[in-house]
């Protein structure tokens, strides 16, 4: 793996003791442009925007205050920012607004976040047993902003979206394998189930709310044949393993010059670890991830002692249901976004919907003990 530049470290250097008035003024001036009201009703450049049910923005007011919080957290001893670094918006969605100032990141979690659950998830990320696996939070608790809990973290360099060849498949797989082997004694008593099925169900609810679309029928048919637990309509049969709950390539960062770590604990919890492998599995099954990259990921996961799939036999009995659910989730979001944006589905989105269409002819492969 070739070393890459790290924006966090570079900005951190700017945080020298420059006590002049100008840097402070620079930081107090907002560097955040007002976001157009239509942001959530059309796709952003990279397609990562998400939408609430009404297609309206709900996070417009949190950005300036969250920016002030991240500047204050970056300079706890100073009255005002002393480093001159810009404050940038890393994500702005109803389920998570993330701003960065220098080497510090603040995240405003979704309104209505289960606070006890978040506290338990933070405790897991802060636990020494998870060092080198999950990015630890700055401090044990959450601040509050406009009814939304706010947590602080170190900035890390994300995976390069423009360079598929540099995707850290082996590292992601090894992190998941280690996460899944976390001993039960580490998990706090109040740790909720992972939220994978809940997120899939939410995407399907968005699809239904988006209005009629010709591609909706095969997606809803594929959803209907999934077992109730995968649709978040029954408890998960397997609550024995610590899972990330929303693994994708945007969930890996390298803070400083260190190794890759998993981020985003909002969906972390107990559950079926196959769910964490199921997004790459679904991408492979839908023809978006080449077989050799999928094989690299799966092999690295097995080599690192991951427990989600058998070590030396067909992984698909374990992966089938979660990979179907995540394909449905992805297809449902794609259709809802295309309806909201008044644009046709693209080739990649169509591949996922086609896979949902093929699912109807093949009932789910049910792994032992997962038949209900």
């Amino acid at each position, binding site marked *: 793996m070739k070393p890459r530049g790290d924006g966090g470290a570079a900005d951190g250097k700017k945080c020298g003791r420059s006590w002049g008035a100008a840097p402070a003024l620079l930081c107090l001036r907002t560097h955040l442009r007002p976001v157009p009201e239509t942001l959530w009703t059309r796709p952003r450049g*990279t*397609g*990562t925007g*998400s939408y609430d049910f009404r297609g309206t923005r709900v996070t417009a007011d949190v950005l300036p205050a969250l920016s002030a919080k991240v500047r204050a957290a970056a300079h706890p001893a100073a009255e005002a920012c002393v480093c001159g670094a810009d404050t940038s918006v890393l994500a702005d969605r109803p*389920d998570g607004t993330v701003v960065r100032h220098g080497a510090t990141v603040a995240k405003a979690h979704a309104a209505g976040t289960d606070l006890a659950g978040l506290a338990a998830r933070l405790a897991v990320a802060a636990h020494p047993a998870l060092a080198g696996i999950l990015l630890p939070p700055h401090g044990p608790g959450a601040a509050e902003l406009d009814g939304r809990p706010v947590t602080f973290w170190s900035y890390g360099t994300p*995976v390069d*979206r*423009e360079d*598929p*060849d540099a*995707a850290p498949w082996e590292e992601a797989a090894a992190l998941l394998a280690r996460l899944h082997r976390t001993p039960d004694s580490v998990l706090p008593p109040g740790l909720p189930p992972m939220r994978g099925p809940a*997120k899939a169900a939410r995407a399907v609810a968005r699809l239904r709310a988006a209005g009629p679309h010709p591609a909706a029928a095969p997606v809803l048919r594929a959803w209907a044949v999934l077992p109730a637990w995968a649709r978040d309509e029954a408890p998960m049969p397997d609550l024995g393993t610590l899972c990330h709950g*929303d693994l*994708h*390539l*945007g969930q890996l960062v390298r803070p400083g010059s260190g190794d890759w770590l998993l981020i985003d604990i909002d969906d972390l919890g107990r559950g079926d670890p196959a769910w964490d492998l199921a*997004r790459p599995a679904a*991408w*492979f*099954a*839908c*023809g*978006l*991830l*080449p*077989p*050799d*990259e*999928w*094989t690299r990921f*799966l092999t690295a996961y097995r080599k690192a002692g991951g427990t989600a799939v058998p070590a030396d036999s*067909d*992984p*698909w*009995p374990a*992966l*089938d249901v979660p*990979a*179907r659910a995540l394909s449905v989730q*992805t297809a449902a*979001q794609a259709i809802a976004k295309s309806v909201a944006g008044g644009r046709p589905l*693209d*080739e*990649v*989105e169509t*591949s*996922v919907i*086609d*896979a949902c269409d*093929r*699912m109807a*002819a*093949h*009932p*789910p*492969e*049910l*792994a*032992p003990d997962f*038949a209900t």
Partner: protein
Amino acid sequence: MQCPKCHAPMHTYNRNGVQIEQCSGCRGIFLDYGELESLTRLEGQWSQPGPPPPGAPQAYPSAPAPAWGAPQHGGHGGHGGHYGHKRQKGFGHMLFSS
């Protein structure tokens, strides 16, 4: 589906595109209409491999995939070929979003 012999649940597997139900108890196998013929045909292809099609070398062994998966084209997906275009487009677009 229940095993007709021992009544344990049967699990569905896909082998070379053929759906097979196997009993989790007695390990017995249930084949649908035409599936035995499909397996026999596949066995014949296995024992008498024809020459590889020109210009399409099997650079990487095909990975097990679900029955609903997209057809695998066999070629090396790393740089171009069947996956090149969609891979580049899908990568930044879909492999990063929740």
